[in-house]
């Protein structure tokens, strides 16, 4: 009897779990996944920045447990409706959007269910576990899958490392360039600000446009 009832509810998609899941899916549709965020970007920043495109209902940073601490962040930003979310994704794609003055633009993607750590269980999904005996033919398969997963994890982290190294180098280069440019700027600025230029201009009877 109970089973029948449960079946009925499934059929009519009316279980609270279902509703929850549906709501969650809907939320996912209007959430944007943003990464390449500087560690300094805070919730407030995100809210106001993305506030241009719509109303931000929630901001959730995806915590970084595994990698080192100073890598870019990522966040899930929930908007009022899916249209706004889409527009953010497209705008970010079109123009470099920077947050907190960081020169690296942020990237935006439509969020996916898998990104949410706190997602509800998909209704109707049942996970069962069992032990696998060594002699079981499935054992090897399981073993391989296990190894493969680990290997993938390693590879992924290796790639991340490569990426980070490269970013490091780039940052290095860019900061060199910046320093050089800034030095030049300062030199020129000093020249102007301490009056040398103007005094010389006076000598030459020149009108130096000051602006």
């Amino acid at each position, binding site marked *: 009897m109970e089973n029948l009832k449960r079946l009925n509810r499934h059929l009519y998609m009316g279980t609270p779990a279902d509703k929850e899941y549906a709501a969650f899916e809907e939320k996912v549709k209007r959430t944007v996944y943003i990464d390449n965020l500087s560690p300094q970007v805070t919730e407030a920043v995100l809210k106001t920045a993305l506030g241009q*495109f719509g109303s931000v209902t929630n901001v959730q940073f995806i915590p970084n447990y595994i990698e080192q601490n100073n890598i870019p962040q990522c966040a899930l930003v929930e908007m009022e409706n899916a249209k*706004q979310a889409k527009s953010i994704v497209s705008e970010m794609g079109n123009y470099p959007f920077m947050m907190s003055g960081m020169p690296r633009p942020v990237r935006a993607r439509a969020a996916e269910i898998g990104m949410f750590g706190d997602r509800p269980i998909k209704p109707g999904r049942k996970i069962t576990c069992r032990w696998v005996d060594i002699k079981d033919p499935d054992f090897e398969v399981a073993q391989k899958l296990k190894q493969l997963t680990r290997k993938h994890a390693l590879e992924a982290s290796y790639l991340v490392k*490569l990426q980070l190294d490269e970013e490091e180098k780039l940052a290095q280069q860019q900061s060199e360039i910046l320093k050089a440019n800034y030095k030049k700027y300062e030199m020129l*600025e000093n020249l102007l600000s301490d009056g040398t230029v103007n005094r010389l201009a006076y000598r030459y009877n020149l009108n130096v446009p000051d602006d």
Partner: protein
Amino acid sequence: MMASSDDEADAVPQFVTNYHFVDDKDEPISFCYLPIQWSEDESPDSMETQIFLHGTADSGLQKIYKQVIAWKFELLDEHPEIAVLSKEKNWIKLQKPRKSFEDTIRAILITLHCLHFLKKNPETSGKSLWDHLRKVFSLYELRPSENDLLDHLPLINDAVKHDETLSKSKFLLTFLQNPMKSKAYNEDVQIGTETRKSKFIVDDDEELDEDIEAADEDDSDGEADLFDSVCSICDNGGEILCCEGRCLRSFHATLDDGTDSQCKSLGLSKAQVEAIQNFLCKNCQYKQHQCFACGKLGSSDKSSAAEVFPCVSATCGYFYHPECAAKLLHPGNDAEAEEYQKKIAAGESFTCPVHKCLVCKERENKEVEELHFAVCRRCPRAYHRKCLPRKISFEDLEGEDIITRAWDGLLPNNRILIYCLKHKIDRTIGTPIRNHIIFPNVEERNKTRAKDVLPGKGKVVIKKRSIFSEDSPGEITVSKKPRQVEKVPIDLKDSASTKKLEKHFSGQGFDSSEKPKMKDASRKPFKDSVKFVPIKMDKSSAADERKASLGGVKLNSVLNKVSEPVKSYLKDLPNSRSEKTKLSAPLTKKPNISRPLLDGDTKKRLLAFKEKLSSSITLEEVKKRHRDRMPSTHSYSSKDVVDKMTQGKVEVLVEAIRTALQKSEEGCNVEDAKAVCGPEVLNKIIKWRNKLKVYLAPFLHGMRYTSFGRHFTKVDKLKEIVNKLHPYVQNGDMIVDFCCGANDFSCLLKEKLEETGKRCSFKNYDVIQPKNDFSFEKKDWMTVRTKELPTGSRLIMGLNPPFGVRAALANKFIDKALEFRPKLLILIVPQETERLDKKEDAYDLVWEDNQKLSGKSFYLPGSVDINDKQMEQWNLKPPLLYLWSRSDWTERHKEIALKEGHIALKEGHVSTEQKELRLEEQQNEAELLEQPMDISPVHDYYGDISKLINEYGDESNPINDLPGKYNVAEPEEPGKVVSEDQKESSLPKHDLQVNHNRTEDDLEVNQSRHGDDDAGSSINHDLGKKRSCEYLKVRQDTGKQSRSKTKTPPKNRKNFDRRPQLSKKHKKTPPSVSSPLKRTDSEFGTGYGGLPTTTSIPDEDLDDIARRYSSSKRSIGTSLIQEYGGLRGLEEQFPGNTRDHMDSFSRTAYTREADTRKQLLRLYGQQEVDPSQLLRLYGLQDPDPSGRSGYLPRQDTGFGNMGSLSSSTPYGSTSNAPSSYGRMTSSTPYGSFGTSTPLVGGRSGIFDCPGSQYPPGPPRPGFHHDSIGFPPGPPHPFQ
């Protein structure tokens, strides 16, 4: 096809200028829609729509308005001549189109010019055609392209049929056969020519930049004008790499770059070039330079025994042995020469022989053509153009056995390049043999690892590079292979001559670019290769729409591929347990997700995969995409310009200027000083500084901005504006917001209109979709066509365009809006914006309000201050809000304005107020200011004061009838005191009066200078040219209770009144902190304030000053501000001024000021007083508000205060400057929307320079140890 002769020249106009055509709906239309008449006897077909010609004829005297029925063109020698046939069957020739009409007829004009050029040079190639067209249409933003021709294919076809010469043109034939195909070629041409840096013809991107930046007219293309843009090896132009060192030279970096002249080049590969951050030629690297006189290498290391010394002249860069130089400078006079030699050897600066003409010993003069310098490329000799010996000629003179030795247009700065008679010219290459450059280490032909021993300057990158460049000729090997090349300056001579180039390629090192790659494959260091693409990688991620994250789709597919081998590997596993164990060995460790557990093969594979991905993204692609997707106004990047400003050049410039100044102040001949550093250098310095400032803006003002650097007008201000605008709107109008931002304006306006029963339509444009998309169209305003909107009489346009540097963007938006001829234009724009009554199609000002947007009128979406609140912007120089009406509607609009009280009626009112204000001014000193003179939105008398000052020169004694009227002024004060914060009715009312004043007065008196005057001011922070007003402020400020002297008690009160307001604004700022800020205002103020109002100053001086002020350029205020940082420098200059300035307001102060002013006058005898100097002087003398004794010692704290001020009020209060140029800047290193525009434009802002306080905010924790995030960068803001 001559124009039919005219019967009576007077009655019938023959030429018309400033023309434009309209159709019967009064919309602009191109004349190509008229039937074209190819020959005399044709009679034009009748047309359905009527087309009318507008213009002026007979040198502007006669206005033309005629219906025209046909057109024709004639490809004359000089230019194509276009004529239209009037209804009366008279041909009228068209001269210059009206500026706003240019775009409409762009395509046809380009087509005609193309035909004209091809007729003149039928054999010409497409490339030279486009070069020519580009030159002709250099003022157009969009370069002429095939698309323009495509628009007129039938015309071209007909033209070919009608004209023999044209039919011979290969270009046309190919084009007509295959119009689309040649398009591709054209793009290549365009891209190719883009990358060419033509020497003095402005690079196209530069042009756009100039357009956007509204740069000044002198040497327009940033860098190239001052320094060599010619390769030092082959003396030819093209794509060159500048050395950052002292030599100031440039080279062709790769063989490719030097193909046109068979230049050996430096022999680097493209990849190497890209990897170089800071290129130093070998000479500068090893500090060994050749003496330009004798050619021998010598050490130039200042720290050790230097043998050669550089000439100190700003753009010279040549080194000399002391004896060589001395001998040349003092020929024949041994004793002198020896002495000079010693001087040079001791390190004294000297100017080399190149700076004096050999013949007449005079300096060069860049202005006068005859006195342009011709400098020899191989030895230190120079001549004036007029002094050039006959044998050094510009052309070959066969009969006299003279070969070309002189070329115009290669060297920048109006110089002529010559090879003097001392050098034999190798006939085969047309230049002397190119063995003049000796890099150190040439003798060691064994391509040593010299590069490995790089001195400190070498970056990590360079080291790696050496691994690759093993075989590529890093050094210039002295090769004597003659090449058959005629030396031709690129882009300069007729394209025909370039054809004479015969190219011989020696295979030497030609494939150097390929070698490294091969080595890549075979060698281990994959990682190194990765370095060459770092830039590309990251930029791509920004621009990549599809690949949203780590490669997206591609990643998946590649990963799949990657995992396949693994899968297959695993399949094999059952068969080979041993392998499995090998694999699983590392993996069976505890899953500590640490890294180095992958074996070498995997790593290699991964690296290769990564490499593949990253190489698929190129900088070119990114640039192109960026250019295509950005709205036209924002696609420019000044990176290339900035790259040319090498360290060496800057240093040299700096040194040169200082030396020159030193020389001139020590009493040397001005000519000598000019030889060291010519006048053009000064301008260049400023230009460079500005360019750098713009370029570095995001880093100078970093943290403030999120988002696209946009500024949105606050909603409450918008409401006010809506209230003021709606009376002018009629039923059925369309209101267009061409830059809607958050799109609040139209919604508010709609509500209001509905309330009043009007039904209108709306259209809002922007490039980014806002939250609220009411009537929104996502479109670049510049691309909107006239057809898309209704006729002008139904159009009202506005509101807040991006400002840009010096209002450049604002001007563009306005010009575009004017194309639609709206009946009303309501604008929020910076004060520098070109006024609409100055435009060709002049509009009339209905009213103007420079007060409404003072204070915090804008907010920065997405930028938060420390309290996580949205940042607001406070304008120091508040932008203007004004309403312009099309001339035919002015009457009606003015009526409405009068009715609404936006403008006032009476004339008399104006002058009375004016007089009252003047009186006020005068009364400052006098003790009669018993009345409650509140702060009064200073603006109202400020603006007038400025006028007053201007008028001072005219009137002898304006002071006369003032006293009586003073009281009248008073009653208004209280009303005006109301700060902006309190938006009560008093404000608008006061607005009215003010506006009226300003409007009328401005229109009458100050029209010409309005843009310059800072008529408006914010209550608290306006600096501008508030001269006496500032002075008042000062007194108010400084006139604290501690002041016992005369002063102006009322002012004191003002002070108090002001304080609370201030603190309101400075949210976190305790009132005391605000004083330094105030002080700064006042400091600036005094600079001006003091002068004109002191009665103790004799009249003549007053007039003098008045005149000076009136003639001084706009934004003296900002210049002050910029000099602000230099106040410290002032200390040094005026050490003695430790007077206590508490009583600066007393008569004694006045006299003191008069003294200093006189001192100034003496110093700066020129017409234009240098405001910055004044500022400094006055700044020094500024009384210390808090009663501390000496100002000087405090000066720093003043700044320090400001520094702390800013830190305590991070983004909020102080940093207004950046504001007004809100919106988007055109140039940032990313050439993107850029984060912070602000300062850039910052002409309006006080705190312009990085030296001044800036919203540093407390250094965020994450900031410093962050290696990945952006480094803290430039100092001041972040300390």
